């Protein structure tokens, strides 16, 4: 499977659009005039413009090149599961503390990765929860 021209174009438009948003919306609304010396927006503007140019140049070169590129990995399932587990760990951390997060996050992660045997899940959870409880109690 190779990367289609449409997906390369979409990638270029997405990143280019992000740079334009930075240049014309985010940087102007999120920076003020410093009053003296160089404007605080000076460097961010230069950097955002440089990224835009690089993204466009890269996009044009790849679109005109005849060399095929390998396809993107399929789906975002791994990202969704991993971030869900990390987010769950953060919420447990907020409401129940470090030791509880240390015990429950690995268990949630193992279940998310398809581990269904209770012994490894419970043993990992108890071991890490206990160790962090001893350190942070």
């Amino acid at each position, binding site marked *: 499977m190779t990367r289609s021209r449409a997906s390369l174009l979409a*990638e270029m438009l997405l*990143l280019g659009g992000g740079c334009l948003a*930075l240049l014309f919306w*985010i*940087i102007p609304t*999120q*920076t*003020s*005039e*410093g*009053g*003296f*010396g*160089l404007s*605080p*927006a000076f*460097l*961010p503007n230069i*950097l*955002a413009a*440089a*990224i835009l140019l*690089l*993204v466009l*140049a*890269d996009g044009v*070169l790849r679109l005109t090149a005849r060399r095929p590129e390998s396809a*993107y*990995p399929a789906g975002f*399932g*791994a*990202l969704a*599961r*991993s*971030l869900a*587990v*990390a*987010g769950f*760990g*953060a919420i447990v*951390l*907020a409401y129940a503390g*470090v030791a509880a*997060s*240390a015990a429950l*996050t*690995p*268990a*949630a*992660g*193992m279940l*998310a*990765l*398809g*581990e269904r045997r209770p012994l*490894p899940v419970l043993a*990992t959870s108890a071991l*890490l929860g206990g160790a*962090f409880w001893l350190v942070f109690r």
Partner: protein
Amino acid sequence: MSDLLLGFGDALTPVTILFVFLGVLLGYAIGVLPGLNRPAALAIAIPLSYYMTPLSAVAFLIGIAKASGAGGATTAVLINVPGEPNAAVTCLDGYPLARKGKARQALQAALYGSVIGDIVGTLALILLARPLANFALKIGPVEMTALMLLALTFIAALAGKSLLRGLAAGIFGMLVATIGLDIESGTPRMTFEQVELLDGVPLLAITVGMLALSEMVIQTEELFSQRGGAATPPVRTDASGDRFGWGEFRHVLPTIMRSSVIGTAIGIIPGLGPSVASFASYGIAKRFARPGERYGEGELKGVAAAETADNAVVPASFIPLFALGLPGSVSAAILIAALTVHGVIPGPRLFEEHGRLIYGIYGTMIVAALLMLVVGRVGLVAFAQLTRVPAAVIIPVVTMLCVVGAYLEVHSLFAVWVMIGFAALGYLMHRFDYSRVTFLIGFVIGPQFELSLRQTLIVTDRDPAALLGHPIALAILAVAALGALFSLRGGSRALSSGDAV
């Protein structure tokens, strides 16, 4: 001289040696564990160093950096799985040796090569960093700005698959580094009215998110795609007749010495890194092959060449870090994070302001190399058992360490959410072939680059013609432009056949 003696004295205290030992032990274990690489290991270890003294913290991290490289050879030899891209070269001869019943020989050649390469790299660091720092003190902001542009161009060209995408990633890192208070006027810049962002985006949250948690997302993706596939059979390490004696050592010693020099030379140049060193060293060793030596089919020298160069790179890459404040590798960038946490800013003034600490670090690096030999030699078989730990256990445990580690930096959930956000960004950058290493290095050098650039604009009165009065800066910019041109013409692809991170 007194700093030298005091520094080495600090390095030899029992507490420091203990932390080096713990770092080496942890690094070795992490190197052996499938799916965990050096940057991820360092990133999750930084939070553990919060409560240590600066020297103990650096000693601990150096132990991990050095030993994780050496430990990575274990999976390459025993199960034909490179823990890191640079270990792919070790697989070429390591696994065939293991299949022949010579796994122990391959592992010991890798260990001795790693230790010798590491010591040679450390000696180069000790000899070269101070003179280079003295030179750097004499150059002005114009030259420093040019030097940072050169380093970023090299890193962008060599750390990723494309110069343009590498540069975009590095510049994006610099852009993220501008978030916070403006260095001249002190007014907020792109903080979105978040008080937590006034001090900028937390460095550790970015490091842990970009390198460790995003790596776990990638590992999860690989785990899902590999399910159902046939695994490479592990090899036993207790075969009889598999001894590494004086004869074998003499056989590989010339290769080890040559690869030490190659690894050190490559490590000094920002961006080249261990992958390039391993491939280059292996290629040169193959070119020097004697009749009967069959590289790729189980040649001991092949394993020694790859592992020696890989480990020589780590200390050598600290030369531009200590002398110029420029991280030449991702390990060096992470070390900056650790030093910054402890109030130490790397750069040319490091030797004047923290001379004792620097010599202490040198001492701990030598201690780490020797401990690596002991731990690797004694724990060879025990560490091999760790290759059996399933990824379904490693990934969730590392995810938890990322969450808890980001929280411990400032005891703030904000840092945890930032870390998770940058993990998502890191994964997307990986997916679209934008180098996370270059992003991180751009982020680390961003504040210094802005300061130098502002000073340059004042010195030159914003007149480009004034650059003619700075021939060194012009020469550095010319080298950067030539490097970029070479890279665009496809030269980088020949050099970096394996993308680091």
